[in-house]
């Protein structure tokens, strides 16, 4: 420990030796000279600092009072406006209460409390003495437990310690059951009607006028008792109608639409966000999460962004009553890639 408040810097050899190839290390230049504060020399300044600290504490008191005034004083009716006023003043009150105390104490310490500077020397990191003491502790343990002389105890202990973590591993089983083939199938099946999200009313082909976009669920979804959200997350579909000449179906997919009406999975093949931003003039589908863009005129091929596979198309047709129905399930798993997708 050395008190540097006398202000004399220690040692300046380093500068003197510069240029002589001997400057491997710099000497500690020490602390700069101590400078007295205004409050140390001027009693008026000290008095002023005292008042400032007191004011900060008074601000804290006012903040606490403001909290209680807001808590008991603001009458809450059923509107959000009164709640907002109360919340604002509760927050401001607590903030001033805390900040007032905090800044007051810091200002007090900085301006008025003694400010002599102190340097503490670092302890030696390792002494031979400490090392020997530690070795002795280990030796004592080996000696006193007699672990070398009693192999029965040693071996059963090793067995117990090896087995004890197994329950922790076993409970990972509760993360299951494994999804099985549920990722490969959705609620869609042959003859399943396309219905409006959220009310579940079926859609006629004649309802879908040019430029329309319908948000679609399977008609049977709303009748499910359990697992409705999981099924919806896989089965949601976007239904759009384009000029049939704008569609360029590949071989084997010509009859998957009906009069220019096409249905595509709404689940992005990147990480599964709902791709529902349909631009009816450019026929682009945009995913709001990472800007993957799919071109509806090219079977939802990816034209921008991180997705790598096109959106799966749901083959549709109309039934005898003119309602749109699915021809089958999707021909590939919907949504993002997963390990067993193949």
């Amino acid at each position, binding site marked *: 420990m050395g008190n540097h408040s006398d202000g004399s810097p220690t040692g300046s050899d380093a500068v003197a030796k510069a240029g002589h190839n001997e400057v491997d290390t710099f000497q500690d230049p020490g602390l700069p000279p101590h400078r007295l504060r205004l409050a140390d020399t001027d009693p008026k300044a000290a008095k002023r600092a005292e008042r400032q600290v007191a004011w900060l504490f008074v601000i804290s008191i006012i903040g606490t009072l403001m909290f209680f005034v807001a808590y008991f004083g603001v009458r809450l009716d059923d509107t959000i406006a009164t709640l907002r006023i109360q919340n604002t003043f509760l927050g401001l009150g607590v903030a001033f209460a805390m900040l007032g105390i905090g800044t007051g104490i810091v200002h007090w310490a900085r301006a008025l409390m003694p400010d002599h500077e102190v340097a503490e020397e670092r302890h030696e990191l390792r002494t031979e003495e400490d090392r020997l003491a530690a070795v002795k502790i280990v030796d004592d343990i080996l000696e006193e437990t007699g672990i070398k002389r009693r192999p029965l105890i040693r071996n059963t202990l090793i067995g117990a310690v090896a087995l004890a973590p197994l329950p922790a591993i076993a409970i990972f089983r509760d993360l299951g059951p494994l999804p099985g083939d549920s990722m490969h199938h959705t609620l869609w099946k042959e003859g399943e009607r396309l219905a409006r999200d959220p009310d579940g009313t079926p*859609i006629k082909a004649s309802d879908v006028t040019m430029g329309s976009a319908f948000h679609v669920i399977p008609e049977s979804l709303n009748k499910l008792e359990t697992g409705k959200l999981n099924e919806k997350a896989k089965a949601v579909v976007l239904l759009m109608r384009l000029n049939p000449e704008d569609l360029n179906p590949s071989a084997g997919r010509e009859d998957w639409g009906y009069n220019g009406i096409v249905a595509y999975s709404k689940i992005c093949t990147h990480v599964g966000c709902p791709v529902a931003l349909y631009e009816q003039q450019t026929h682009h589908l945009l995913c709001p999460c990472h800007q993957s863009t799919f071109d509806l005129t090219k079977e939802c091929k990816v034209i921008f962004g991180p997705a790598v596979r096109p959106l799966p198309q749901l083959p549709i047709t109309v039934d005898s009553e003119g309602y749109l129905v699915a021809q089958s399930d999707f021909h590939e798993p919907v949504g993002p890639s997963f390990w067993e997708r193949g």
Partner: protein
Amino acid sequence: MKALSQKRRHPLAALALLVLGLMLTGGLYAVVTTVNEAKADTTTFTAQQVEEGEKLFVANCATCHGLGASGTDAGPSLAGVGAAAVDFQVGTGRMPMQMQGPQALQKPQQFTADQTREMAAYVATLGNGPALPEEQYLDGKGDATVGGELFRVNCAMCHNAAAAGGALTRGKFAPPLAGVSNSHIYSAMVTGPQNMPVFNDANITPEGKRDIITFLNVIENQGSPGGAKLGSLGPVSEGLFLWTAVLGVIIGFTIWLTSRTS
């Protein structure tokens, strides 16, 4: 006249007066209600409006949309877009377009409400299309809860869950919906302006559209319950605010804590 005044005390005089009064009231009522109906019926236009609208169209729109609105390379045909499309595009100042670009921008209206109606009248004669919205669906007194659900399913992905708007591809964007009149919101849904899809009455019923308008009015009027909205853009603007303003304050405090007093 004398004969009439002589019979004023006849036993049947009161009855005759009553019948006369009833007929007069009924007749007046019928006249008044037909007048009201004529006012409320926004889908019919007079021949004069059509004629004036055609003049305005030829002078202001035909450069891009072509004579007879048959369309050119610079602008689409307007056959079948309906009066509602004119109400929206011209009523919000998007048409006439200032210049070709990713999308027509909202700007101060170039035409008066009457002129807009006249052009709507003319465009409505070009083919069947969505008519001007009916007043009963614009009152904002529907079910905001149902409207909120419909909005989240059909609109929120582009227009943002708080209707603050959002970006689309290549410079296009879905505009914020605050400050848009109920009639223009309705017109936009039925006509699908620019890249917005059409939401016809088979997709969202007129009552559903009324509910959506009600929901939008409610969220616009109630303001933000949680303090400053920061554009309602979610984690982007909120995170930016925290990283700049709040971290700045924390850094400021740290510097103050470690600095020397004078």
